[in-house]
């Protein structure tokens, strides 16, 4: 299992489109993926879960991967968060 904290960079936070990007990226890997915020944990491979996270700009999330390709999955997800999902 591997964990990492990330920050939301884009202005609008985790709205529908970034949520879709996260789930699509997660789906490429076999590892289980969980996102934790303020004591709430959701399945990162479920778009409805990601959409219900109230993650505004500047908030931090804990990403947790568990599985054979957890390192690769984390790297890909970190890149996605760092890019601000390609949004301002």
């Amino acid at each position: 299992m591997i964990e990492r904290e990330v920050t939301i960079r884009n202005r609008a936070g985790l709205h529908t489109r970034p949520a879709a990007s996260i789930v699509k990226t997660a789906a490429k890997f076999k590892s289980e993926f969980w996102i934790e915020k303020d004591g709430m944990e959701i399945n990162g491979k479920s778009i409805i879960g990601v959409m219900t996270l109230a993650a505004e700009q500047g908030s931090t999330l804990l990403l947790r991967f568990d599985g054979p390709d957890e390192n690769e999955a984390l790297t890909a997800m970190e890149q996605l968060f760092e890019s601000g999902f390609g949004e301002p």
Partner: protein
Amino acid sequence: MNHAEQHPHEVKLRGIPGSPGIVIGPSFLFFKHDPTVQVRDIPAELVDHEVERLQNAVARSKKELTKILGYAEQKLGADQARIFEAQFMLLEDPVLIDALFERVKNERKNAEALVEEEFGKYQRIILSSKDEYARERANDLEDIRNRILRNLEEQKLVSRIEGSHIIISRNLAAADVLVFSRNDVLAYVTEAGGATSHMALLARALKIPAVVGVHQICNQVQFGETIIVDGYNGLVVLHPSPETIRHFEKKRAQYLSFEETLSNLRDLPAETLDGHRVQLSANVELEQELDFLKIQGADGIGLYRSESMLLGKEVFPSEDEQYDRYRRIAEGVFPKQAIIRTFDIGGDKFMAAPTHENNPFLGWRGIRAMLDRPQLFLDQLRAILRASTLKNISIMFPMVTNLKEVQLAKQLLAQAKDDLRSRGLIFDESIKVGAMVEVPAAAVIADHLAKEVDFLSIGTNDLIQYLLAVDRGNDIVSDLYQEFHPAVIRFLRRIIERGKKPHVWVGMCGEMAGDPLATILLIGLGLDEFSVVPAVLPEIKKIIRSIHYTEACHVAERVLGMETEDEIKAFLRHLMKLKFPEIPIG
């Protein structure tokens, strides 16, 4: 089968002219689904059937979304289309969809009730956050919920939009019209809406005939039957007889040949016979209209509705993104001028306030909303300034109510200029600034406003609705929305007289500027600029080029002495019939 059933009697339905043009073609009923869900118990032996219903509904919803996604990618680009991709993913979501099927199996309730409950749960979680974008996410969930519910009832979406059709609906949003416009739509007919609804405006911009405010048409028309739509006169004919069809075909041909003669006016100025020159510009919403307005012979853009770029967006576009758009507008219209109106949000348009407003038309809209969000406003002002290097851009502020708003906006503009200077960027230092006159208070203080700006542009749609206290979108009272109410004419006279200064011109960018019945009157009232939808531009130019300014002044004086709208309209109609029998008057 008797004869009457084979050839039902012709039915003429009156509505309000939304967008000009005559078409004869097959109808296409478009129902926006309005779900009302009832809870039912499902007997044990029918649970499997209920699961199957849900499976089918989800499968159909996916199929629909795949199609919509394809359209969206073509029309809005891949980036915007991702909204529909996300909706599609919701339909495959392991948590959401699995839970739904589990509940249908275990709780023995109808699928509709459980879909509503399950989605409602997530919507409540999302809306309970303070995140200002939460509402958008909740709306996305609602879209997908409604899609599943509709498919559970086995109602078809407009999936077969191939072929040429007349779209008939209870109500259409501007976004619906945009999405439909990719198809070969012959005309739009709606039950709701007034002549100046946003949907009608867009139909006109796209040159698609439309009739709005046609009561109960959805109950009377069937899929695929041939109907006639007369967008000039706001008329719809059901079950037309062969004679009626011939009559309208002839009428249609007349209008078309008239429009052809108008194209000869393209390169000629909007000038009266006695040399009084006015500016005749176009209102523009979509970038795709740029070529069209050149064909129509416009003197530039009198109103670019910048809020159109918010369509389908969840967040405000960045400064760079806006700059790209404005630069393309500036380059596209060069060497002519373009007036960019800062975001006019709120009211019935696009992004509403994040909080509920009981009366949005009297609420947080136009410059009010932007002054409250100075960072967003500065982004926009910097973007416009950066696009002004060709010196053909002006800025206009919407919904101005008092002088201070203009002064504050100008302060922000000065700040935006400073920002750009410190970034070493060039822009038009003497960029012109204008205010819209669409609130009665602004009309009353037009002389004060004129001291702060380079031009005033009268937005008649809102001005009339505020002056007459009539909601133009409310079809119960929309006939009280009178462009030619004597109070409106007096008000226009007052704005033009007091607003005009040696260096300040007064124009009009509302619907009235494009109403051929008003042209002579407006010239006579001294209007300097007309900004109209591109579709009607040649017609207005023809009228201007065929009259004397002195004569128009007499007309204005006579009209100012009249006491009722009926009297004014009858007089102007008579005048138009005498001088321009070929021009269709609504």
